[in-house]
């Protein structure tokens, strides 16, 4: 099995899917000749031509709007938004058109568009290259939202998103685009949407057991905390959600019932962040199994800062502090 980083996994997936299905087209700013500012689409225009790997004018509402029209006609467009921070001009198209097409047409029309976007901070990008807007899409009925953390999942989930009949917001952890490496299956590879992955299992319930829920780049930060926490005698279960909507409630609740404690880690601002939804969903199903309040380790309710970005982002120490608090030290 070849080793790849996340960029290579995206590229490999797009090549495999475009070879497999002539309906798959890629469109976005700089995706063609240049291969994308992060180089995720390198070689696609060369292999599939400028009509299947389309350099668009600079207009996100146009990219998503055209992708919707293509999908209505039967194509499988994969649109790239250069940074998640630039998705807002397309917000109306995504929320009012893409997400509602099947519903508002009584099921007559569908628009299976995948919108890829690099998201998250930690790259010295300032607030226009660092945001994590997953919550606004999770809050939009009709969209599925995927946020992988590693190369193999990226390939498998992206392929599943392309082959599915629903629109998918596909967020990629750009901070780990090149640093997260791993073995990726060759050829066609699918990871089903809606299934979380348990990256580290806890032995069982004890005074020091806890479940950590994370996705995207925060999985890597949580892994650092797991490593150190285990050394300190904690029993930690780490769940990578992978798909945020529909999220894998069964795996999450089973884990919390087992450990008795939960911590949600995300980069996005805290208030009304996805952590709030997870905490609510867990307590509705497992309140009497909980030994402690569910804690959130998140970004803050400020715009994403530039010079203080490492202070803004959740890190190993903040996660370890949360572990200490839920287990009473």
């Amino acid at each position, binding site marked *: 099995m070849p080793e790849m980083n996340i960029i290579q996994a995206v590229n490999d997936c797009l090549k495999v899917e475009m070879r497999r299905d002539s309906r798959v087209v890629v469109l976005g700013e700089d995706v063609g000749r240049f291969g994308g500012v992060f180089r995720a689409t390198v070689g696609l225009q060369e292999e599939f031509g400028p009509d*299947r790997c389309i350099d668009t004018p600079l207009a996100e509402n146009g990219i998503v709007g055209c992708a919707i029209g293509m*999908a209505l006609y039967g194509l499988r467009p994969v649109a790239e938004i250069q940074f998640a921070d630039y998705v807002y001009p397309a917000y109306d198209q995504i929320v009012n058109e893409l997400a509602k097409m099947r519903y508002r047409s009584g099921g007559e029309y569908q628009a299976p568009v995948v919108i890829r976007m690099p998201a998250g901070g930690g790259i010295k990008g300032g607030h226009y290259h660092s945001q994590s807007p997953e919550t606004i899409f999770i809050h939009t009925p009709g969209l599925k939202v995927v946020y992988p953390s590693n190369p193999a999942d990226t390939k498998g989930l992206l392929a599943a998103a392309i082959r599915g009949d629903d629109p998918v917001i596909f967020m990629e952890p750009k901070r780990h685009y090149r640093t997260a490496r791993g073995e990726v299956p060759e050829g066609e590879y699918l990871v089903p949407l809606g299934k979380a992955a348990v990256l580290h299992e806890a032995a069982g319930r004890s005074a020091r057991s806890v479940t950590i829920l994370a996705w995207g780049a925060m999985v890597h930060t949580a892994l650092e905390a797991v490593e150190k926490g285990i050394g300190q005698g904690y029993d930690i279960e780490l769940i990578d959600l992978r798909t945020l909507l529909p999220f894998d409630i069964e795996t999450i609740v089973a884990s919390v019932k087992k450990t008795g404690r939960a911590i949600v880690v995300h980069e996005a601002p805290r208030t009304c962040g996805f952590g709030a939804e997870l905490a609510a969903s867990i307590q509705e199903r497992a309140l009497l199994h909980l030994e402690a309040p569910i804690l959130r380790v998140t970004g803050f309710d400020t715009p994403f800062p530039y010079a203080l970005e490492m202070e803004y982002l959740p890190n190993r120490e903040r996660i370890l502090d949360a572990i200490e608090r839920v287990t009473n030290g």
Partner: protein
Amino acid sequence: MKFELIRVLDDAGCVLHPEWEPAIPAVELRHILQTMVQNSLLDEKLMRFQRQGRIGFYLTAWGEEATLVGPLWALRPSDWIFSCYREAGAALHRGYPLRTLLCQLYCNAEDPVRGRQLPVHHTARELNFVSVSSVVGTQIPHAVGMAMAAKLSGRDDVSLVYFGDGATSTGDFHVSCNIAAVRKAPCLFFCRNNGWAISTPRSVQTATPTLAQKAVAYGMPAVLVDGNDVLALAHVTAGAAARARRGEGPTLIEALTYRRGAHTSSDDPTAYRDPDEPREWECRDPIRRFRAYLEGKGLWNADEERAFVQRCEQEFAALVAEVESLPSKSPLATMFDDVYAERPWHLDEQFVELDREVRRHRA
């Protein structure tokens, strides 16, 4: 920047430009007039139905009937129509059943949209008439994308996208013109310039003398056409469609017409518009002009119209009786269907919760 106003008929229905008169077969000419007359009749009845509380919302195309059917003559059934909310008549002309149209307006159990949208938000997949949004201008890039997809698929289908003068101020319009021109998308941008965007007159919408001239900045040809002249609309659309099918790209068509009625049933134009203005447009009534043209050719007469109107009235009355006897709403579960291709666990859960509540409070 001057655009000549393309007209084939004068206000009396006499042919001004025989060289532009499209060769439309007699049966189709009659069909065009019939759709226009039927649409106008439906508008009158259905606006009254809205006032009576039988349907929740309505809007008319009074005075704009030519724009509903004129552009369709040049299209094939495989060409796609992206409309806004005032062009149900275009779907009717393509064969959208009146019964289905009424079910949509009643939002009842047989509404193809399953009661999920306001009235006048039709969808007709089998006619390539795409689901309507209330949001102004958002359908324009969809038409461009569909046209790009057709070209990429090696087929010569074109898209026709309807929008109003207000939509030319939206970002979606400008972005769409730009992308379509760059990609040479076989897309016909059809602007129904009816002079008013709710209460905002055309003069407040843009500083340019025409809307057509906006195409110039995108490297796209444009035509300015009399929107109350069916034959002129058929003529210019045929040219634009042929051009698109030859791979030469999009065209912007500005059709000058006038919104004689209110914006919608929720609007009152007496609050912002000189009541004499609509009257000035009555002499350019598209139905009267086209009827005179057909009568001149011996293809239509007053007796035929009386008989046609009577048939429409009878059909309408019979269908209303039937439609009003249908269940008024789709079953509860349909609220949760079609959000996704398959209903995910959280919607299953929410349905069960609501269903239980509804049953408990009913008991």
